[in-house]
């Protein structure tokens, strides 16, 4: 599917845009195209959201389409469920990762299960946007990486963009999906820029496809969202050490693109999973385990993981010690038992 097809007439002005702008544009285009798309959340209307992602939507589409709700996340998601039951396509904004927790019961017991428990009669095409992760100097409860909770919940899709293009394309695809999507927005990439034209058609992959962001032959870095730039930087730095690293951007944690990931690891024979979520019980365990199941006899070394420490997210002044950086990625690559194989 191309976004041109999705968003109507477009011209060709390519200039740098931020991920935040691309997300906002995706919301706008979705709302323009489909009158059943409604945005709701705290401060999304008049203010345009604390990250200004929804800026202008209330003005363009009215407060009934982009609604400032009372301050209650379970209420927001719970009413979104009811709206979806009546045929609307709600897009919910959670203000920060940790502030999605009050809505956990609605998410787990209803949003994830409704299609299943009604045997397909009541799908819930709800997109839950969650700004997530650290690196922006946020005080406590503003930097959680909560993706493990969502991944462990059958019935949800879990999607996270790492580029400006994907921010647009994946959000459009998520809103268009007939299943609930937890759409994780890497806060610290909100202000990342790339040449991007809101008016140029962009080839949008359907949800569920990983992509090789940098081809390489020595080892595969498997990552997503906020850690993609770290991995790309590490891959550049690794050239000096003689390593040619392939970087895979998962884009969708659920469904998981086993094919792309396994194909890469079979080629390279070595892999490191990189994410800033805590290591223990985090996404990396699942990813490493399934890669190993599929590629065992191709592996020269165990799949390693570079992750945040197993600690509550630290205060801003210490976060750089917690977050996986280029050095930690290279360190892990160095431990991939290079003597043993190639």
């Amino acid at each position, binding site marked *: 599917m191309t976004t041109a097809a999705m968003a109507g007439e477009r011209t060709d002005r390519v200039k740098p845009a931020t991920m935040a702008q691309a997300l906002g544009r995706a919301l706008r285009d979705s709302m323009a195209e489909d009158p059943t798309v409604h945005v709701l959340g705290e401060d999304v209307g008049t203010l345009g959201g604390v990250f200004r992602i929804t800026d202008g939507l209330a003005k363009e589409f009215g407060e009934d389409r982009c609604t400032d709700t009372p301050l209650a996340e379970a209420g927001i998601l719970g009413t979104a469920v009811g709206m979806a039951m009546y045929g609307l396509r709600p897009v919910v904004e959670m203000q920060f990762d940790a502030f999605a927790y009050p809505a956990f*019961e609605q998410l787990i*017991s209803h949003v994830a299960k409704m299609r299943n428990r009604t045997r397909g009669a009541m799908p819930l095409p709800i997109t839950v946007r969650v700004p997530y992760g650290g690196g922006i100097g946020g005080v406590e409860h503003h930097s959680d990486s909560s993706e493990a909770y969502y991944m462990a919940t059958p019935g949800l899709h879990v999607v996270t963009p790492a580029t400006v293009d994907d921010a647009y394309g994946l959000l459009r695809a998520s809103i268009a999906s007939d299943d609930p999507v937890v759409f994780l927005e890497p806060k610290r990439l909100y202000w990342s820029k790339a040449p991007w034209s809101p008016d140029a058609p962009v080839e949008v992959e359907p949800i569920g496809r990983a992509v090789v962001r940098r081809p390489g032959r020595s080892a595969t870095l498997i990552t997503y969202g906020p850690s993609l730039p770290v991995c790309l930087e590490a891959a550049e730095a690794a050239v000096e050490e003689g390593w040619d690293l392939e970087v895979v951007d998962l884009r969708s944690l659920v469904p998981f693109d086993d094919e792309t990931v396994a194909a890469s690891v079979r080629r390279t024979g070595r892999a490191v999973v990189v994410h800033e979520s805590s290591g223990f019980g985090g996404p990396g365990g699942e990813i490493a385990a399934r890669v190993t199941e599929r590629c065992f006899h191709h592996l020269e070394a165990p799949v390693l993981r570079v992750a945040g420490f197993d600690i509550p997210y630290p205060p801003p002044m210490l976060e750089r010690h917690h977050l996986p950086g280029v050095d930690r990625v290279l360190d892990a690559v160095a431990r991939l038992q290079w003597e043993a194989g190639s």
Partner: protein
Amino acid sequence: MTVQELPGAAAYRPTPPPAWKPLTNPAPLLPDPEPYRVLGTAAVADADPELLLRLYAELVRGRRYNAQATALTKQGRLAVYPSSTGQEACEIAAALVLEERDWLFPSYRDTLAAVARGLDPVEALTLLRGDRHTGYDPREHRIAPLCTPLATQLPHAVGLAHAARLKGDDVVALAMVGDGGTSEGDFHEALNFAAVWRAPVVFLVQNNGFAISVPLAKQTAAPSLAHKAVGYGMPGRLVDGNDAAAVHQVLGEAVARARAGGGPTLVEAVTYRMDAHTNADDATRYRGDSEVEAWRAHDPIMLLERELTERGLLGEDGIEEARAAAERMAAGLRARMNADPVLDPMDLFTHVYAEQTAQLREQAARLRVELDAEQGQDGTSGAGDGR
């Protein structure tokens, strides 16, 4: 900063803070001091005899339905049944007060309301039989799935009612919850959203005295549950939940108000759960016979039957007819519940997502192999092996 430096200081007069004004006049929001009643009071004169007779027939049928479902648990045909015996007036009134286009949001106890609204009793009971989570298409009768996580259905009702209004549809949602459920955060959030959005929704709290074993006095210190309405800026109504005419009237007024754009209402119906919490519960652990007996003297069927017989609207024939109809329903239900449901285990994978993921396809293939092997082994079909 001193007073001299502050702009407007000289103009200062003791006034209330500038932005403050009451959003609503609280007085009309307060419930009656006593549960509202119709039967046995002067108000009954205004009640439509046909409605009363209809309510009566449904109450009798409802009681029989509860008894039959409970019996089915003893025969192992239902895994569990939360009976609404004693609460039939609420269940029936909730169902009857709605138009076809309206939506009902039942809690896990409210299969009777769903059945009275037209749902096939077998479909209503699949959840409790254990073969399906929701045994019906919610859109068919506009009945949301029976909701087990307490109070979580209330924001759904608000969202649906709000969506309908946004679409310009004349639809009211009626949501049912227990006294215990009012303590959950979702109750609070739902009522607040409803009031702020003036959503066309009616909240019916069946205060049946207990949340499993926990009596109301350990649940709340409020004057009544209906008083909670004030804090949301919606009217609270307190009604005798065993008086079918009263519940019907109060709910009817609330539905009409919602339909007219007047916003939500909270209705507390004071009633009593005559049976244990479910067939698996032992109510003697937490309440005495005398309390149950006192409520038996305030039985919803008895109240209505007395009214109707005293007014000459119902005779032995009518009573017999209602009973017979109820027996027919029960016999049909018994017969149909005696058949083992035919299930296909491969259905496990069919409605997780709109499209099966590669992972689920793999898992389904593995189960397929297992089922085929089972079939090979014992000659039975892997499918349809319900229990």
